[in-house]
């Protein structure tokens, strides 16, 4: 079985793809059946993925040499592209995580989407997303990865815009796609350069060739390539400055936010950088940039999250911030820490989004956390699982987030990036604060009389419980005392850092301080007067943070002024210069010359006859006065 699963891992993306086709072409009219097909496809994938992952994680060979099998996709002289599967601990872990989380979220969605007119379509999109995401994960070739990368982008577009009759959803979907497209432009250039310089896009071949890149190219070019490749992850993973689409993406149904915009798709960027770490590893400049981007984004997004009011927006900024953490870890060269955080984050962030969904479901889509309160009494399962998620993201031991965050902080400290370490630590404090601000505002405190919350049905709460368990214990696979994770997922050679108790204790203190501050401001003080006073005192900072540093407005202005301006300019040029002056100008010259010459057409027969006569006369005169031989030539050579 394990053997079969490992050598047929292509089934993992294929099964959801089949579900997609089945739903679209066959079962669309039957909602329950469609949902069943979708869930069944993903669960089957999950089984295969689990078996394959088991196979990988029991054989240490695969950390050195991945299992690769592929077929030729298309080829021509000088351009051969394969598609295939590359199984190593990283991709096996990712495959397992994605199928597991996706299965849980799909099950959740069967309850959440109840009664929606687009039920079947929704599940077909989910299946398509699952297929694309898994294709991305197993890719053995960067072009294949890019294809999947764009396809997940498409699914994201379709699902964000799922409530397409809402203008906000429509615009958010478009924004997500276009923003990612801008980033993908860079990525595409990077891939093209790789193809041109190294003649291949296969991951294993590239890794081999880049390890002695001097034979192919210079350091400068390689740096440029690395930066171009990194543009893609900046967009897809919502890093500064292209993070703007991710909070807007919350227009989509909540299971989508949980699956795509928290657990899986948005970390594809991290995964891509992780997959191509052999490239970044050669280029210290790029590594620094990745680390700085990550660290800055983490802090930046956290600073926005602390003032937001909409529940899903807070979570979205938190996602941006946490992905910043992962990027930071990658930039520090620690694939271990980055993937570890990706793993734990998937569980607790999916959990929190699903909880948020459950809350929204209960409150009929009232999203402002200030209008909630005391929900934990009416919705105990949702509430307490949310608390587990909150503990995990804040980094309270022994919950999952603690271990992975510790790993990242340790990596920053050990590599001597003290500024980044400081930023990460500050972010950890802010994360604990804003997350618990959300929890205290929404779950605790007084109940609002106008809300009539109720606990969600079983098919929604079961995934919550499962994810809560995973968020609680998911980090135990990589504790400093039992470094299972660290032995399997690494770049170069395994990283065995001694447990640094100072950092551990420090991070716990920061987390607890954040939670305590939130408790003080939003829970202990029922009137929340202190919170308001604080906001009032730092009015400027509060406004800037609440308005997300006005970055959306700047982009919008840029887009309207320059892009649309240029568009109008080009169009006017087309109409008035290319078409007006040249094309119609030439036509006008033709017409005018015709008008000039038609004066000669008097319409009188006798005028014509006169001209005719004069013409004959002229010919006769010419012939009479020319040399006979020339004349013969003129008249056509008749002797």
């Amino acid at each position, binding site marked *: 079985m394990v053997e079969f699963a490992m050598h047929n891992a292509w089934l993992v993306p294929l099964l959801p793809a089949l579900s997609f086709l089945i739903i679209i072409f066959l079962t669309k009219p039957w909602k329950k059946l469609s949902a069943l097909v979708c869930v069944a496809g993903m669960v089957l994938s999950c089984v295969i993925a689990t078996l394959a992952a088991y196979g990988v994680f029991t054989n240490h060979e695969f950390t050195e040499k991945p299992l690769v099998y592929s077929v*030729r*996709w*298309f*080829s*021509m*002289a*000088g*351009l051969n592209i394969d598609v295939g599967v590359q199984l190593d601990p990283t991709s096996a872990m990712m495959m397992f995580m994605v199928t597991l989380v996706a299965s849980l979220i799909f099950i959740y969605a069967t309850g959440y989407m109840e009664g929606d007119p687009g039920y079947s379509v929704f599940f077909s999109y989910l299946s398509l997303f699952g297929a694309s995401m898994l294709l991305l994960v197993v890719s053995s070739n960067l*072009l294949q990865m*890019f*294809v*999947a*990368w*764009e*396809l997940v982008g*498409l699914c994201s577009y379709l699902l964000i*815009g799922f409530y*397409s*009759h*809402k*203008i906000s*959803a*429509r*615009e958010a*979907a*478009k924004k997500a*796609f*276009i923003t990612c*497209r*801008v980033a*993908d*432009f860079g990525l*595409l*250039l990077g891939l*093209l*350069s790789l*193809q*041109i310089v190294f003649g291949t896009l296969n991951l294993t071949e590239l890794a081999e060739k880049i390890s002695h890149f001097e034979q192919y190219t210079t350091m400068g070019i390689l740096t440029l390539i690395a930066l171009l490749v990194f543009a893609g992850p900046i967009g897809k993973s919502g890093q500064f400055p292209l993070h703007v689409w991710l909070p807007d993406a919350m227009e989509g149904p909540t299971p989508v936010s949980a699956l795509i915009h928290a657990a899986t798709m948005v970390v594809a960027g991290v995964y891509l950088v992780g997959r191509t770490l052999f490239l970044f590893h050669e280029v210290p400049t790029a590594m620094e940039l990745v680390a700085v981007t990550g660290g800055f984004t983490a802090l930046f997004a956290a600073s926005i999250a602390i003032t937001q009011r909409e529940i899903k927006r807070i979570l979205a900024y938190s996602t941006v911030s946490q992905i910043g953490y992962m990027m930071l870890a990658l930039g520090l060269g620690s694939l271990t820490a980055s993937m570890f955080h990706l793993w734990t984050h998937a569980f607790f962030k999916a959990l929190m989004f699903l909880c948020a969904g459950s809350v929204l479901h209960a409150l009929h889509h009232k999203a402002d956390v200030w209008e909630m309160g005391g929900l934990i009494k009416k919705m105990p399962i949702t509430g307490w699982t949310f608390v587990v998620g909150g503990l995990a993201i804040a980094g309270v031991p022994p919950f999952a987030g603690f271990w992975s965050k510790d790993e990242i902080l340790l990596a920053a400290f050990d590599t001597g990036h003290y500024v980044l370490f400081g930023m990460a630590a500050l972010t950890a404090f802010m994360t604990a604060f804003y997350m618990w601000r959300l929890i205290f505002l929404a779950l605790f405190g007084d109940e609002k009389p106008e809300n009539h919350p109720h606990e969600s049905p079983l098919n929604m709460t079961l995934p919550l419980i499962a994810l809560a368990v995973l968020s609680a214990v998911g980090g135990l696979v990589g504790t400093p005392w039992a470094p299972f994770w660290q032995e399997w997922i690494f770049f170069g050679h395994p990283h065995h850092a001694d447990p640094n108790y100072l950092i551990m204790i420090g991070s716990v203190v920061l987390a607890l301080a954040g939670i305590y501050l939130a408790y003080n401001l939003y829970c202990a003080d029922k009137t929340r007067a202190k919170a308001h006073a604080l906001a009032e005192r730092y009015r400027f900072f509060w406004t800037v943070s609440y308005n997300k540093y006005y970055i959306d407005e700047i982009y919008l202005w840029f887009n309207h002024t320059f*892009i*649309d301006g*240029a*568009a*109008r*300019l*080009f*169009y006017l040029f*087309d109409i008035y210069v*290319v*078409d007006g002056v*040249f*094309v119609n100008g030439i*036509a006008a010259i033709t017409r005018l010359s015709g008008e000039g010459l038609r004066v000669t057409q008097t319409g009188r027969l006798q005028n014509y006859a006169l001209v005719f006569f004069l013409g004959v006369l002229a010919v006769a005169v010419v012939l009479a006065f020319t040399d006979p031989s020339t004349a013969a030539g003129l008249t056509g050579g008749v002797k």
Partner: protein
Amino acid sequence: MNGFPVLTTILLAPVAAALIMTFIPRNESKLIKCIAAVGTFVSMALSLYVYFSYDTALGGLQFAEKIPWIRDLGVNWFLAVDGISLPMLLLTNLIGFSAVFASWNVDNRPREFFILLCLLITGVMGTFVAHDLFIFLLFYEVVVIPIYILVIIWGSSKRVTKEYAGMKLTIYLLIGSAFLLVGVIAFFVKAAGVLGQPNMSFTALAEAGKQLSAFDQTWLFALMLFGFGSLVSMWPFHSWSPDGYAGAPTAVSMIHAGVLKKIGGYGLVKIALYMLPVGAKFWAPYMAVLGVAGVTYAAFAALAQKDLKYIVGYSSVSHMGYVMLAIGSFSVIGINGAVANMFAHGVMAALFFSTVGFIYEKTHTRWIPDLGGLARQVPRLAVAFMLAALASLGLPGLISFIPEFTIFVASFKVYGGLAVIGIAGIILTALYALRAGANTLFGPPREEYDHLEDIRGPEMVPLVVLGTVLVVGGILPSLLFDMVNSGAATLMTHVESAVKLGGVFK
């Protein structure tokens, strides 16, 4: 089917349909449409057969038919296909068949309409299967007349009148073909001098062409570049295209943007580049510059449009810029990309125009501010629209991505920064394609369109046929590329050896 003149049959099936239609009473419009469908279906089925039984490993000319015609000029009825012409032939038939169904609701003089449509399809096919320059030109000119009549009678007037559009289209192309004709005749005369006897076959002309002096090749190529370039709507000779498509009836827009335009690109590759390699080498950078200019310029212009057909019109100009860029890269990969992209764009543009046509037919408007929320009311039409829009922006998994990628590889290698400007076009394309989609299909549904009927029955054919090709071609690009590469590799081997020679009399 050895010895069976399958290419001639493909050519004549629509003609036969047209002849039969002349005997049908004019009010039997259903029967007329069915006959047109059968005629184009026969062609499509046969060209699918030819496509899949063509031996790509062997390559070269296959299914050749050669009957002497005008001996004094060395003209033969010489039809044959290779890896470059076969995709174009298939494309023509896929689109031709779909176009018949896209015009299923034509009520104004249906008999004349379908007769002209069938003749148009035949004309376009003829240019792709001809392996004789005379036959090629003959079909090239055959195409123009039905187009003109179809536009001015069945067209629609919006920003410009249909008469203006038809006139502009026809005259522009005739001017282009006049230059082309001069080039071809001059070339033919010079080639006859080299060969010692007049010969119109592509192969013979290519042998003769590479022996011409570099100077001759250069100016002959310039004439052909203008002729074919204006047909492929090369910037700045593109302005017939948006107006023409906007004025033309749906089927004509489909065929024109889908395949007719490709005759230009095809001619540039299969005639100009193949026969005048040194000239092509000289003009290649200029083609690349014009290509990039076209890509960016038309994409920006498309962004400013509010009429759906103009968007698609400018978008097709923009995509043809990629073809020019690819030919300008002067490499096997580039030619592969150029031909494959023409195929991909043909399918996509045809689907786009058929969808826009249906939207216009049902809502009586193409003006985007008057549209919105159609996804709820006509979901299948919305699927078709989105498929076309996504293919247009080069979404992987649909047919146009790999050709574009191929073009990018080829051109980035040769032109670097210039190519980057062209590649940036993918952002603009995404911008206008998604804007058009969003503003037409999404957003709050409008009451006045609540009664609209979704496409069904025969109207589904374009979506099914072209949509299938879009998806299958995207997932299995080798279906297309094995074919194209077998032609492009042979062609570029010839071209590169000829360029090394560098023109004999230099």
